């Protein structure tokens, strides 16, 4: 259903004619992203989102966003805002929806060195933010999707795990003051911002709204639009500029003097997880997460062909139970201590750092880029086949991640044996060990499928569905992909205190006219 001309004109008056479009070719750009079919459980032959946006808008300021939301309420339209659009949950998924591409709101407003936080708009990419923060001796939490993705989107509305989570936690734990345009168009300044105009806290006065705003998973654009947020910053142990050598496609980092990059490995899941306990107990890494052999192999090579040749040598498989680490010390003594700790942990748990693997060109460097800001992820999980999905992800304890790792192997095994996914080994990413695992650990059994291959995609869809049931049966925690949208909620919610009912109440209360697209979150009560 196209927008009425009256509604279109009202929207056009807000953003100007150059910042609104109904052009079908433009809408195609807002209806396509990887993993649509398994995530949306749509047919393998349907490459696009099931509902295309009626129009796309490029708002330039918070006042425009408010005005857009008022028009949506008036004309019975839904909006779906997104940062960089790298996820099906970020795109419009319901009929009669307009996409709000936040690209024009792209400023880093302020880096507060003293209070260690930064205020950003939606289209500030993780990589940009990192570059600007290290100029001040600070670093932000970075997320797995990598440097091109929106830091604001992750912190305010979408997931939030990443390689540095061992120190910098989950996005939901890093958000401070929030400027939030509610679905009704009202402006809510959350936390200290609403009280004093300062950005230092997301909570208070009175009960915190942080849980309602995003909970653990985020609302994926279903509860209005976040126009500015502050996030925490952490000390950065390196120089004020990233340096690299080489030309496309592989750039090697100049690893700072007091930083190190290692891919450690063990002989089993159990040994690796035992080492994780010790690593987190020692609180000695800058960054650290589970290193999938094929993924790391892809990151350190220039092409699929080169990756395949490396795989044939068997070096990666020897290091299948691997955990990537970056150390970072602020003094010579600190980095020496970290190195010593790592050595002791490896000795105690039977782990190793494979010299042969370290000699592979770009191996050490690509691990560094990954831990720095999720860099090289596209080589790692997209170059091989074009897309991926997950089987029974979970966020719970290290023990749960261990259980999830075994379950991942079990679930993916038959499909891998049939050649429907990339035939790698023990391909469970995650173990993000939030805050030294004190608040949990994330795991993602990844399977790389080819979206251009119908049988491969059908398998991805089926395993995506079956994984929800398996995660419940095996008790590996409420996961990431299995927990978005109505269908998943109906399966998981009864096993988790009926959380779905509360989400529906929140949706109804905050969005009485359903002016924000519920896709990726839930329909109102």
């Amino acid at each position, binding site marked *: 259903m196209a927008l009425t001309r009256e509604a279109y004109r009202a929207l056009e008056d807000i953003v100007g004619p150059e910042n609104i479009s109904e052009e079908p*070719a433009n809408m195609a750009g807002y209806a396509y992203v990887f993993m649509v079919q398994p995530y949306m459980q749509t047919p393998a032959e349907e490459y696009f989102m099931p509902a295309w946006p009626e129009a796309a808008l490029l708002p330039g300021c918070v006042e425009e966003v408010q005005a857009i939301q008022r028009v949506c309420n008036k004309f019975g339209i839904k909006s779906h805002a997104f940062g960089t659009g790298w996820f099906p949950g970020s795109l419009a998924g319901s009929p009669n929806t307009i996409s709000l591409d936040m690209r024009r709101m792209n400023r880093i407003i302020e880096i507060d060195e003293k209070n260690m936080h930064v205020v950003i708009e939606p289209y500030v990419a993780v990589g*940009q933010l990192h570059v600007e923060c290290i100029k001040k001796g600070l670093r932000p939490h970075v997320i797995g999707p990598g440097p091109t993705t929106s830091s604001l989107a992750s912190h305010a509305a979408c997931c939030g795990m990443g390689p540095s989570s061992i120190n910098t936690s989950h996005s939901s734990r890093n958000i401070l003051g929030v400027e939030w345009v509610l679905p009704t168009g009202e402006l809510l300044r959350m936390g200290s911002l609403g009280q004093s105009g300062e950005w230092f806290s997301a909570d208070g006065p009175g009960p915190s709204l942080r849980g309602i705003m995003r909970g653990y998973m985020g609302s994926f654009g279903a509860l209005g639009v976040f126009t500015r947020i502050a996030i925490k910053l952490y000390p950065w142990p390196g120089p004020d500029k990233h340096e690299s050598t080489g030309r496309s496609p592989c750039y090697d980092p100049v690893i700072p003097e007091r930083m190190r990059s290692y891919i450690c490995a063990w002989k089993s899941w159990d040994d690796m997880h035992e080492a994780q306990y010790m690593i987190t107990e020692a609180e000695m890494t800058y960054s650290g997460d589970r290193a999938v052999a094929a993924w790391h192999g892809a990151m350190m090579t220039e092409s699929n062909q080169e990756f395949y040749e490396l795989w044939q040598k068997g070096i990666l498989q020897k290091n299948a139970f691997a955990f990537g680490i970056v150390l970072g010390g602020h003094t010579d003594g600190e980095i020496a201590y970290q190195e010593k700790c790592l050595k002791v942990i490896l000795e105690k748990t039977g782990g190793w750092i494979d010299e042969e693997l370290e000699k592979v060109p770009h191996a050490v460097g690509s691990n560094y880029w990954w831990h720095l800001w999720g860099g090289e992820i596209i080589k790692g999980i*997209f170059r091989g086949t074009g897309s991926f999905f997950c089987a029974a992800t979970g966020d719970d304890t290290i023990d749960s991640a261990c259980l999830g790792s075994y379950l991942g192997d079990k679930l993916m095994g038959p499909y891998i044996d049939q050649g429907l996914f990339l035939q790698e080994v023990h391909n469970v990413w995650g173990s993000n060990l939030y805050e030294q695992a004190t608040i949990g650990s994330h795991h993602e059994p990844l399977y790389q499928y080819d979206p251009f291959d119908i049988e491969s995609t059908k398998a991805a869809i089926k395993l995506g569905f079956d994984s929800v049931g398996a995660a419940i049966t095996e008790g590996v925690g409420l996961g990431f992909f299995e927990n978005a949208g109505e269908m998943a909620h109906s399966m998981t919610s009864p096993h988790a205190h009926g959380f779905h009912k509360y989400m529906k109440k929140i949706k109804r209360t905050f969005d009485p006219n359903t002016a924000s697209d519920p896709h990726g979150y839930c329909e109102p009560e």
Partner: protein
Amino acid sequence: MALIDWKADMVRCERCSNCKWVPWQKGPGQEFAQVCPSISKHNFHAYSGAGRYHSALAYVTDKIGYTDGWLDIIYHCQMCGACDITCKTNRDMEPQEMLLALRAQCVEDGQLIPQLMEVMEGLKDEDNMMKSKKADRGNWAKGLKVKDLTKEKAEVVYHAGCRISFDEGLHKVARTAISVLQKAGVDVGIFGKEEACCGGRSYEMGYQGEIEKFSEHNADMYKKAGVKKMIVSCSDCYHCFKVLYHKIGRKLDIEVIHITEYLAQLIKEGKLKFSKNIPLRVTYHDPCHLGRLGEDWIPWKGVEKKVMGQLCLHDPPKVFRRGKYGIYDAPREILRSIPGVKLTEMKRIEEYSFCCGAGGGCIDSFPDYSLWAAQERITEAKTTGAEAMVTACGWCERNFSDAVNETGDALKIYDIIELVEQAI
């Protein structure tokens, strides 16, 4: 390959948006982080490399048809290759080839834009892309003592190209090139008014048939003249003669050299020496067709195959052109060897250089947009503290000069040969 043959790439483009950004490993911050002029200006995702993949996918799966809006998206693109290279820092895909196929499909389907039709009429009637008379092509060389290859033999042919031949403001580039080459003892000649277009720009506009005619005609001329090498000042021509002719199966049997490569070699051999000091802070703009698009064509014919279940490989193995081997060092070596010249780099350089704006027909079809891109680049150049921006392509120099003239900017624009001549 036809548009439909790129469907697998369209489907496998995951929308990571790396096509919009300078490679992250180069540390782009808030400023000058965007690499594609089209998305930088228009902001809607469809104006990016990924967005064009997705609209093309919608077309080949019958979700959309031709509209004025889609043609606007397709042609607001300089074909500069920035998305191609930044995609290929991560993926085994061919965005530039898909974009070329998309434009060719438009032409085949009669979906044309009037401004380019006018240029193409000029090409068909007068053998040039400048809507000018063929008879005037050799005017740039008036008064020069240089061999006429229609009558004399020489080892080297200097090809001026359409832009430099017909743009009076750029005649100095070709005249200086001849003068410098002669001073260095090079046996050089020209074809004057008999010189013809290389066919490269029309190819990038989607009119892929024209290059066949010009490649055949040009090869024939060079053979008859007995030349062994070609030197060009225009980066578009360089790319066409070296890369596109090879791609279409008509590789020239003479060596194609950009003048910066030749001059750098002469400097290295001590055959070109500078005696004058030029106290000037400069920055260098890498032309797209000399840099990332300028590396050799690598022929490949084969099929995709799967190993390890779903790992996509090619049989025989395919080597991708990823911008690594473009001409980046030669112009910098020349500038560094000129006494007094101090080179300071912009943020977006080499394989992730930001286009001048003139490419892909945009200087003709959307001049305002073309100038906008040039002004973006000039803004970046000024942040280096440079007094002048040096480039190595007539199209770049023209567009930058026009942008500077429009804004009244003090930044000077030079072709590299101009500084070389001043220093000799």
